[in-house]
């Protein structure tokens, strides 16, 4: 039997580096070892990719989806069914950091292409990722670089590249923005066939040398005839760049930080952790995988359990994975996508280029009701395969007194730590039914229902809102 602490630590890793895992998977991973599991997660290419033939056979409309929530549903399907959880989690991370929204782009397939780019490059070099981002047609359109011309610059991309994507406020001047924008002139999108009535056609990146400003530029202390890639080379060598990226990684994977706009006036909660990540960045030549290896193997990560509020996508996907009713094509993925929307996270359509406010700001009165209702409905449904599996695990422990029943439920879907207040409520509910018994058919039916109610209550608790 694996040690309970090992299971709890592995559950923590899988909640953060993925979207949670069943007890059976946790036990298998503990047997494999923590560091070996981290390595597996860091090398998604060694695990099978989502079978897109299956996906598009059963959901032909997901390919080149005409509009939300279909494109969102496609991503939710991948998040639930991936064998490469960190790859998908990193796609979500980059989407949150490089927020690009359908409200303006109005091109769901192109946004989906951008997410696919994050899958491909999301664990590699930060420098290469920024180059790919600069060439992403969805990003070009989102931040108007198609309107950035040699004789009339548009500063939108140049500004956000520094302010929101690579450096953070206070690390560049207005002149740097102008010079960076000059360097990205000519980076645009080729004309494409318009949408409808024959479905969607993809954009292609196009570099137009005749529209590129070939003059000398002065950028962050460097002078030269810079093009876009030169600007990115300079950016990733700025001391501010790894600090900014490390804080984002910490905020997403370790513990909630203040909202990003406050970062220039509020220091990180754990400066030593940021320094470790910065060192990993510098030593590895901007390698994201190396930073994450340090992060997941660090004590600051291992000790940060339940220190983050789950984003809606994490809550929706994690609960659906646990309930186990979406592990193959079936109708209803669009409703899971809508659930994310209703809880405040419209995938592929963040509210602005500043992205979502995270942490406690995920939750307001309306969002909390949606989160509770969604999770409680799924976790309380004793007909779902994942819940049946939880029941079987508890049943294998035989008749249980109420306190052990509560412990067994918390263990089976986590292990989940809960506050004294929550534990008291759960215990009171469990005591109402007395000992959990499996002796007769009637006992069994009643016990299954009682477990369903307890799981429902647990998933409605404050504690369940944290990852």
């Amino acid at each position, binding site marked *: 039997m694996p040690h309970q602490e090992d299971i709890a630590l592995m559950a923590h890793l899988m909640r953060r580096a993925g979207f949670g895992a069943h007890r059976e998977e946790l036990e298998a991973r503990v047997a494999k070892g923590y560091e070996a599991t981290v390595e597996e997660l860091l090398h998604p290419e060694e695990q099978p990719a989502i079978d897109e033939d299956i996906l598009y056979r059963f959901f*032909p409309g997901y390919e080149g989806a005409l509009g939300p929530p279909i494109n969102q549903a496609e991503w939710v399907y991948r998040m639930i069914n991936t064998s490469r959880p960190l790859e998908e989690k990193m796609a979500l991370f980059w989407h949150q950091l490089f927020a690009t929204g359908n409200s303006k782009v109005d091109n769901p397939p192109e946004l989906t292409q951008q997410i696919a780019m994050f899958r491909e490059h999301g664990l590699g070099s930060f420098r290469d990722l920024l180059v790919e981002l600069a060439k992403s047609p969805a990003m070009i359109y989102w931040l108007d670089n198609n309107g950035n011309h040699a004789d009339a610059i548009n500063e939108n991309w140049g500004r956000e590249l520094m302010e929101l994507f690579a450096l953070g406020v206070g690390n560049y001047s207005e002149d740097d923005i102008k010079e960076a924008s000059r360097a990205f002139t000519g980076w645009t999108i080729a004309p494409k066939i318009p949408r409808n009535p024959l479905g969607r056609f993809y954009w292609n990146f196009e570099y137009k040398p005749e529209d590129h400003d070939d003059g000398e530029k002065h950028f962050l202390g460097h002078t030269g005839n810079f093009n876009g890639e030169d600007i990115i080379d300079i950016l990733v060598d700025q001391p501010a760049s790894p600090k900014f990226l490390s804080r984002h990684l910490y905020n997403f994977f370790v513990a909630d930080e203040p909202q990003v706009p406050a970062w220039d006036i509020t220091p990180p909660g754990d400066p030593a952790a940021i320094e470790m990540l910065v060192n990993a960045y510098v030593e590895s030549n901007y390698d994201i995988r190396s930073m994450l290896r340090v992060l997941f193997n660090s004590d600051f990560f291992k000790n940060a359990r339940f220190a983050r509020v789950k984003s809606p996508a994490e809550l929706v996907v994690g609960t659906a994975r646990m309930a186990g009713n979406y592990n193959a094509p079936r109708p209803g993925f669009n409703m899971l996508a809508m659930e994310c929307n209703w809880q405040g996270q419209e995938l592929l359509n963040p509210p602005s280029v500043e992205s979502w406010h995270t942490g406690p700001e995920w939750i307001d009165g309306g969002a909390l009701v949606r989160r509770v209702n969604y999770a409680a409905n799924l976790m309380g449904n004793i007909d779902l395969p994942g819940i049946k599996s939880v029941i079987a695990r508890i049943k294998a422990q035989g008749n249980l007194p109420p306190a052990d029943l509560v412990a067994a439920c918390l263990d089976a879907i986590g292990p989940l730590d809960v506050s004294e207040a929550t534990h008291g409520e759960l215990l009171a509910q469990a005591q109402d039914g007395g000992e959990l018994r499996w002796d007769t058919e009637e006992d069994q039916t009643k016990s299954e229902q009682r477990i369903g109610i307890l799981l429902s209550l647990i998933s409605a608790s404050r504690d369940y809102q944290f990852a």
Partner: protein
Amino acid sequence: MLTTVAAGRVFDYSYCIGMYGMSGQGFWSPQDFAFGSDGVIYVISRGVEEIGQRITRVTWDHEFLGQFGANGSGDGQFIWPRSLDLDQAGNVYASDDYLHRISVFDSEGGFLSAWGEAGSGDGQLNGPSGIAFDSNDNLFVVDSHNSRVQEFTKEGKFLGKWGSQGTGDGELNMPWGICVDREDNVYVADWKNNRVQKFTPDGKFLVKFCGNDKGVGDLHGPTGVAVDSEGDVYVTDWGNHRLQVYGPDGKFVTTLVGDAQQPSPWTQTYIDANPDIIKARRRADLEPEWRFHRPVAVNVDSQDRIVILESYRHRLQIYNKEKEYEEHSLNL
């Protein structure tokens, strides 16, 4: 190329029918089609999630006659409509690979009956995909997740079955489309095995179509199959976005890639009504629009017109197999 000449055959592009439409005139992720009498073509649309599921009636000359079916699990409704065929009386049979059943409509779309039961026993279905009638008016059903073909009477009485999961001759892996030739031989698009297999009416393996060992004529995820009056076999090579043509013996003949340079009248009407779209089209390379994207089903009519349905482009492209073609002078 609008005209393709290969191995003594000539395939001449003719025209296309259709466009995207959530409802009414148009198709939405169409999956299969069948020819009815009086120039009517029935096209079954999968739609997306809860919308767009229906069977459309359209003529060869673009007249939209109406539609029937909708989302749901009640009589005459679909969750995942997949395939359809017509019996000799002109009634329409449609498979649903989520509801594991066959729904039957009259030629005008009036609901008649439904049969099918989920499971893996004789006569039970798990993900029924392609369907096709033989000359006796019995229905072959590709029972996809059970890796087999089953034969039923029109009323759904089980008659026989063949096939099992595997990669050997006669074995199947998530098969999709099916057709029956004039001798009642049965062709099955063996989707996950990247090949088409031909069987006798009672399921004895005859020949397979999958290209040669140099990759010529390969298939990736074949979906639909049809046979013309001369025994040539047409396969929608869904994963490679093309139509592969084979001789009766399985030898590869040629590839068609789609040639819809002229939009269908429905599409043209849409374009003409949108000045911005006209403007945008004049700046774009239009070739991607001509080409097949997810060709999903193919049928050949009595005149050897080859009709290919594209799921992603929501249209039918039509080729004629020219029998009286005279080669042009090369030095023109």
